[in-house]
């Protein structure tokens, strides 16, 4: 199985959220606020599912309608075998790399290994 690592920024408000990458789980408050790198494995031809959980409606602080504190996960970089997907690539080719809602899940479909070069061209 190829190895991957995910660079994230964790935001806290009444603690930090939980985060799941496929079946790998980090429970709420396991991660401190700030930057973290999470190592995991994946399979070609399958999806990687990212889920943030453990956030309630009280876990956001507003001042004059503006968010001043929030419980969130922001993806900075996903390093897979052969390629890195940076924040701008998530925005351009996938989805907003920000998890702000409870049980919010997002997926990345990894192509078959033989199709990696063309995927590399498409998302670089």
């Amino acid at each position, binding site marked *: 199985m190829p190895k991957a690592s995910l660079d994230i920024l964790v935001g806290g408000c009444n603690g930090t959220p939980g985060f799941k990458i496929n079946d790998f789980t980090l429970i709420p408050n396991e991660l401190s606020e700030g930057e973290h790198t999470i190592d995991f494995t994946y399979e070609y031809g399958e999806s990687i599912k990212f889920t943030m959980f453990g956030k309630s409606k009280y876990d956001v602080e507003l001042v004059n309608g503006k968010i001043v504190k929030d419980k969130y996960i922001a993806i900075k970089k996903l390093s897979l*075998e*052969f*390629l*890195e997907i940076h924040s701008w690539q998530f925005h351009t080719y996938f989805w907003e790399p920000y998890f702000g809602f409870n049980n919010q899940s997002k997926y990345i479909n990894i192509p078959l*290994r033989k199709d990696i*070069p*063309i995927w*590399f*061209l*498409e998302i670089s």
Partner: protein
Amino acid sequence: MVDVLLVSSPATFSDIAPAAPAILIAMLEKAGYSAKFYDFNLIVNNDRDFIDLALNGRMPKNKKKFNNKIINYINDIKKYNPKFIGISIFTYQCQNIAKLLCVYLRIHAPEIKIILGGQGLAQGGLEGTHLGEKWKKLNLCDYWVISEGEWPIIDIVSGNYKETINWTQITNLDEFPIPNYSSYDFSRYKKTIPITGSRGCVRRCTFCDIHVHWKKFVFRSGMSIAKEMIEQSSKYGIYNFTFTDSLINGSMKAYKEMCEVLAKHNSSAKQRISWQGQFIFRPKNQMPEDVWKLSADAGLAETHVGVESLSESVRDHMKKKFSNEDIFYSLNCMKKYNITTVLLMIVGYITDNENTLQENKNMYQKLSKYSPNTIRKVAIGTTLSILPGTPLEKIAKDHGVKLGKYENDWSGPSTLETRLQWRLELIDHCRKLGFFVPENEEQQALLNYVTDQEKIYA
């Protein structure tokens, strides 16, 4: 079947055959391995898809067509049936295509081991961040080499290599075999053979990272260099040589020895050997006129001199160690012995200001009588870059310099926009005086960009 296929990654733009693969091939052959060179950079040099990706990071719109094109090249490479592919990443502008090649090779030729080398694997100058370890972690390569590859490539092929960021400089260049250009198609290059006589530099210029990277100035004996030139010219029928050295007259002892052997050869040879390379201006007592005459007899055709600034005070600060008098002396000798020169200039040094700009202009006026027969070209390349690890980076703060995100967008004594304007002013001034000053589109584009940004954020 070949043990190692060396592949150049685009994009570099030189009409001279690359020197490094030929020396690596010779080293491998001496150690009992076979090796060839596939000049991928040359093959795709007119292909906009590759050039755009290399220089601007822009992927071609038609991905399918580009994918097929790359697969065809990978199939060409596979025809050599190599055990190892050594991708030569000459500058940072070769990184994008090198990465692409790695991805395609991994999928379409997984049995081939990939070696990455070349100064382009370092970001931000020779002392910048090295990408080798990062790319290996991404499984883009099996091995990476920092700096000199002559011994590491043998260790890799024989299974005794351990990557390290701390390399030890090779101090005996005379132990290398003569470079082997047999797998090169010389009809596709300028009729000149590259040659290396030394590594490192005798000067410690403040803006330069050569002496930071190559701690010692190491050089071959003059006899060994001359012998290589005589042998190679006879083997390939090419009688002109281009030195890859930072300077060819670093060791005057070796330089004179080389000139004596070549002058003797030229006096009786059917076809004279000629050569050119980077040079330093030296005072008369270090390089008297008889050495200039000997150089001409030995075939010195052109020198490329890092003058950098025509203001003595700026040059002194740079530690260039030659005076305006030395410049006139050298130019007079070159004029007398029909040797041409290219002046390599930097605009916007940290001590440059409107006064030094005027000093430059005044000196160009005085030097215009040497153009075009002696001063063939004035290369006003770029504005000053402050590279990591250089003396300039260390003293920058003391001079009120605030380093920027990139090497040349520092601010303090002057702004990037001012420096780019000075550069344009000098180019215009030189052209009016009759000097040939080549275009540098990148610098003009940078000026446009900087001006636009200032408008946006005004």
